[in-house]
């Protein structure tokens, strides 16, 4: 049976708290990323080799990337770990939907195809942006809500809402849509054609992870930048 978003709801309960299918998948993803990170940094060498080299390159790449994106290096250093975590979590979540069985095996539902996950990530970004703005500019940060004139207050507030909203809906829409199309394509043309589409999905999954991370970084950069 081809499904998309069917495994929505509780797989089991811990006391009164339900544990959804996507939460179990998230645990597996976290364990996987943690394991790779542990293996990569278990025996750090001065001259990196193999897994350590690859993982270091990834982390350093995100660091450099955010440093270039943000003008202030200390801000980039401060928030790069959060952004790298966004990137790793989202990309692995996106790819988890491409493995056969996703959405059919209980406890295996790609997290980013569920908008509760993307909403949470977008909310984390939104809160981080406000915290970053306050910690960088103090009370003056509030000034940017009435800049350039108090008349702009509603629009500025709207902007603060639309940013996370766009993050939330973009990621969810892309991944959920991709899963849905894959399910229908598998039904219509079971051979070969879905493979091409899955190839595209590999690209799409990476692009969406990068887009989410870059936009989060740019929101943080805007909130901490000059002009507030």
């Amino acid at each position, binding site marked *: 049976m081809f*499904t998309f978003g069917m495994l929505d709801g509780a797989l089991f309960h811990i006391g009164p708290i339900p544990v959804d299918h996507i939460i179990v998948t998230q645990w597996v993803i976290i364990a996987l*990323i943690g394991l790779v990170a*542990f293996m990569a940094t278990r025996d750090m060498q001065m001259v990196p080799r193999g897994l350590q080299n690859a993982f270091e390159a990834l*982390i*350093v790449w995100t660091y450099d990337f955010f440093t270039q994106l943000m003008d202030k290096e200390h801000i980039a250093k401060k928030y790069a770990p959060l952004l790298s975590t966004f990137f790793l979590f989202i990309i692995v979540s996106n790819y988890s939907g491409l493995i056969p069985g996703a959405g059919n095996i209980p406890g295996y539902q790609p997290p980013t195809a569920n908008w509760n996950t993307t909403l*949470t990530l977008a909310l984390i970004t939104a809160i981080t942006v406000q915290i970053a703005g306050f910690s960088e500019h103090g009370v003056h940060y509030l000034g940017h809500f009435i800049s350039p004139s108090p008349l702009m207050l509603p629009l500025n507030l709207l902007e603060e809402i639309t940013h996370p909203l766009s993050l939330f809906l973009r990621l969810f829409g892309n991944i959920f849509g991709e899963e849905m199309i894959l399910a229908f394509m598998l039904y219509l*043309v079971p051979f070969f054609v879905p493979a091409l589409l899955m190839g595209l999905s590999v690209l799409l999954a990476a692009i969406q992870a990068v887009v989410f991370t870059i936009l989060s970084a740019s929101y943080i950069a805007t909130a901490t930048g000059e002009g507030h």
Partner: protein
Amino acid sequence: MIRKRNVFMILLLTLIMTIGFASLAYASGAGAGGVIPAPEGHTPKLFNWYAIGWTAVNFFILLAILYKFAFDPINNMLEQRTNTIESSLKHAEQVKVEVEEMRKEAQANLAESRKQAQEIVARATKAAEDAKDEIIAKAQQEADNIKDKAYAEIQAATEKAKMELKDAAVMLALMAAEKVLERAITDEDHKNMVKNFVNEAGDLMC
């Protein structure tokens, strides 16, 4: 002109379409109680607060795990690497300076050695020169001594010869006088005569 690659692409597309239509026919036939059922699904329920809470918790757990196993060790390693590279560069710079110093020192030493060697050669030359002069002077002196000695000997021999000659002359003169006079000459006469004769003869001979 149709190239080989284009032919391949056309064949591939035909194959895909054939498989596609075949499977479409298969699936639509199967739809009415066949093998492959139509996909089902719905958008997940939004504002599932438990899921949102769990996701937030999971995300921060992942962040903590990555801090422990990725960001901290990698940052430390990067810092360590930066330090190592910096110190290596500094060390290299220091070594360079040291080498330059050593080179200068070696050059100075070489110049000094050369100077010393020249001095030694000069001193040796001077010593040899002095020795030569001394030897020559000594030889000269010895030659002079020998010459003087020889001269003195010659002088002495000449004197001796003169004396002997004088004695012989005296004897001859005595004998001649005795013969001429045929008488004994007094000692006084004798002496005066001889003296006069010898003096005249000596002045003539010498």
